[in-house]
């Protein structure tokens, strides 16, 4: 039976226009976004409370935020708060909304505790959470988190937030923006600055949706939308002025007054199963990185280096991280020597000689007078092999090739997406959604020990062609590449990899062979 996915259902949320929805790509730091210019949204498609709320949020933007994108965080925050105040959610939808708001407040608390600098983003999330939580049917733990976090964020946080929401409700968006600027700036309300000059989105603060922002997994939807909400616009008839607000719980006098705590109290009611052990973040990060590297390494690996490519894809202005390629080198105790068979065994150097005892006397007694002992040259350089599924290479083929390049370097690479060949282990992989491995199979006359039928760190895809070519160009010449020239990855990445390889081929810096047998034939000729 064909069933409708959450992606297909999204247009049904909007009554008077057709909005095209696409799934939010993996690895981007935002959960969703709406582009009023072409009526497109990116949304998460999961069946979770958070994802449903993001879809609700974006659909509300698609209905009420059609006046174009606003560049600053203040306008964005006011717009977000406005649409959530307009939404009248009930039942499970309201529970989803409450859960998400409480999670957001909790994550802002965490960011404050960690001393993060993205203040505008934190303020935006807090204001949005307040617009959801400060309603009569809110849950007590969520409100408590909001109060504690908002007070930690700004000494007059709750008063300001209440005032902002009241102004939005009354339709006074200018006043709301002025107060929001004060809230974001962290200054006292009585020092209200020039409304035009105190935007919170200072140059050192990132706007919503930029890479590496606060708790990207919790999803601050980086909308590219939001109208100004000028007084007298379509929403100005919404509700009463601030003093007649129907949000009694939002009045500051109804709330316990709390001094700014050094450690923000985090209720655990909305924790999603992850214990918060309060380890300082740098130490936690270092520990994660260490575990990630250990998980990534094989016993054969000496060191694991990472070749990264800078992101250039920006769909809807969002940077998609390129996959990282992990380079696995050899350790001496995990290798064996490359040898030929029987008496034809040769030493693993690119230049050398072999004295055969049975011919020593003959060589020494040369009629020309000199010893007829010559150095022989073996192939060196570097061979890079595309080990993706399309190449159909086995361990034996690789060994045959390694024999031909005894003193050179033989490496293979392949890429994978999360879920292929097991789940990802490192935070980088999880963030990016794809990665690759380049394994040095043989080097300096040594080769990896037998692995049976399965080569280590070999996956089915390419994905890291670009990084692999970069690696090859950094290796000693001559450079050979066994590659069927079937690139995979994002279009931009493929284009870059193709261009680089064509250029390297034209400059004779890399020789590409499409088939193993062709390569072996050429190698024989070279010898």
């Amino acid at each position: 039976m064909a069933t409708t996915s959450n992606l297909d259902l999204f247009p049904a949320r909007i009554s008077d226009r057709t909005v095209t929805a696409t799934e939010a790509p993996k690895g981007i730091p935002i959960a969703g976004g709406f582009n009023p210019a072409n009526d497109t949204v990116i949304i998460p498609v999961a069946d979770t409370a958070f994802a449903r709320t993001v879809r609700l949020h974006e659909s509300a933007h698609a209905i009420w935020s059609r006046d174009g994108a606003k560049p600053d965080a203040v306008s964005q925050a006011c717009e977000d708060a406005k649409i959530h105040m307009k939404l009248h959610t009930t039942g499970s939808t309201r529970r989803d909304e409450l859960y998400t708001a409480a999670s957001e407040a909790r994550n802002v608390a965490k960011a404050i505790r960690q001393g993060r600098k993205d203040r505008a983003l934190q303020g935006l999330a807090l204001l949005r959470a307040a617009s959801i939580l400060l309603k009569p049917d809110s849950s007590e733990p969520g409100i408590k988190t909001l109060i504690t976090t908002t007070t930690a964020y700004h000494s007059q946080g709750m008063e300001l937030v209440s005032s902002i929401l009241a102004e939005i409700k009354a339709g006074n968006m200018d006043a709301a923006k002025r107060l929001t600027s004060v809230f974001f700036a962290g200054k006292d309300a009585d020092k209200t600055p020039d409304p035009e000059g105190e935007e919170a989105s200072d140059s050192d603060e990132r706007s919503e949706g930029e890479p590496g922002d606060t708790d990207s997994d919790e999803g601050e939807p980086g909308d590219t939308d939001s109208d100004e909400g000028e007084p007298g616009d379509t929403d100005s008839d919404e509700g009463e002025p601030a003093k007649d607000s129907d949000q009694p719980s939002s009045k500051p006098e109804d709330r316990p007054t709390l001094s700014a705590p050094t450690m923000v109290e985090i209720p655990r009611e909305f924790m999603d199963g992850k214990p918060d052990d309060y380890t300082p973040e740098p130490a936690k990060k270092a520990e994660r990185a260490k575990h990630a590297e250990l998980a990534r390494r094989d016993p054969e690996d000496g060191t694991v280096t990472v070749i990264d490519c800078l992101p250039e894809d920006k769909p809807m202005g969002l940077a998609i991280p390129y996959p990282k390629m992990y380079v696995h080198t050899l350790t001496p105790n995990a290798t064996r020597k490359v040898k030929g068979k029987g008496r034809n065994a040769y030493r693993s150097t690119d230049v050398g000689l072999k004295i055969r005892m049975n011919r020593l006397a003959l060589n020494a007694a040369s009629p020309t007078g000199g010893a007829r002992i010559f150095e022989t040259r073996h192939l060196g350089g570097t061979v890079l092999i595309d080990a993706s599924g399309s190449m159909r290479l086995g361990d034996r083929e690789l060994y045959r090739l390694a024999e031909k390049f005894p003193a050179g370097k033989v490496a293979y690479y392949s890429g994978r997406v999360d879920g292929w060949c097991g789940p990802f282990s490192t935070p980088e992989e999880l963030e990016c959604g794809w990665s690759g491995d380049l394994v040095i199979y043989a080097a300096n006359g040594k080769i990896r020990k037998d692995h049976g039928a399965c080569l280590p760190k070999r996956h089915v895809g390419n994905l890291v062609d670009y990084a692999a070519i970069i690696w090859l160009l950094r290796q000693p010449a001559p450079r050979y590449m066994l590659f069927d020239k079937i690139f995979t990855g994002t279009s931009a990445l493929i284009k870059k990899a193709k261009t680089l390889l064509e250029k390297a081929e034209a400059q004779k810096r890399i020789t590409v062979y499409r088939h193993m047998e062709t390569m072996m034939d050429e190698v024989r000729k070279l010898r």
Partner: protein
Amino acid sequence: MPDLTLTAPPATADLFPAGTPAPAPDMMAALAALMAALQPKAPAPAAPVIPAPPVAEPGPEKVTLGTISKITTRSKWWDVLEACLAAGLNRILLVGPPGTGKSTTADTDGLRVTCHEDAGPESMIGTFIQKDGNTVWVDGPTSIAMRAGKRVVSDEFDHNSPECLSLAYATLDDSPSIMLPTGEYLVAKSGYQLIGTSNSSPSDFPEAILDRFEAIIVAAEPHPNAVKIVKAQAGTKADALTGLMNNYYRGLNTTQYAFRGNPTLRKCRNFAKLLDAGLDENVAAQVVFGNAAKEILSAMTTSSAKVGE
């Protein structure tokens, strides 16, 4: 010393070996009484054992339109089934693991069809037979149910043959009607209900069939009436056995019975019907839209919103 005749009971005689002075008669009587008291009591004659009648446990309370609002997402499937029937839904699919009492619960009128791949339409609507030298038409369970306005249970609905499945489009329609081979055009009477049961995922059904079922209920735990029978027969092991059984069903993975209903005309009408009857919106959405329930409810928040509002 008076001449005494020992009248002590034989059981006490060996207490006094030869040469021992015999005790006085009153002492003997007291001693005999004492010995008798010390003797192990003989078992009383066995009375005929009459097993106590099993204590009748109250069954699940019947859900009516008056109590339909009490049904929540935590309610049991049999209550949800009753609620759907009380709300006026007539075509319901019960899915779940084998042996939870789906068919037994649904079968109130004794009309059942077991679907299988080789079954022809005659297993549902009836066939011509030879009787007393004449060829006569005999209604099948579905025809009987349609004619009399009763409930027919279609077991193993997923095993329907293509011919029967084609017929099911008609029997599951909003106004069920079929043309019998006799030439009779049979329109279902009011009260006709079709309840299908299946052990496989509803997602395997054709979309049009799934759309025609007004509610799809996952029956993943045994009906209490069936449990009562097990309890009555298990004697002292009743608690252990029923506990084991309940634990087994609780541990079963029911995600295979998940389905996602689209907001089609029929589904929306059925949802509205359930809401109108007073059923909780989460329950109603669950039985109509399945796993898409929360998404549908969330989408409804903005689906009618206008820019100017």
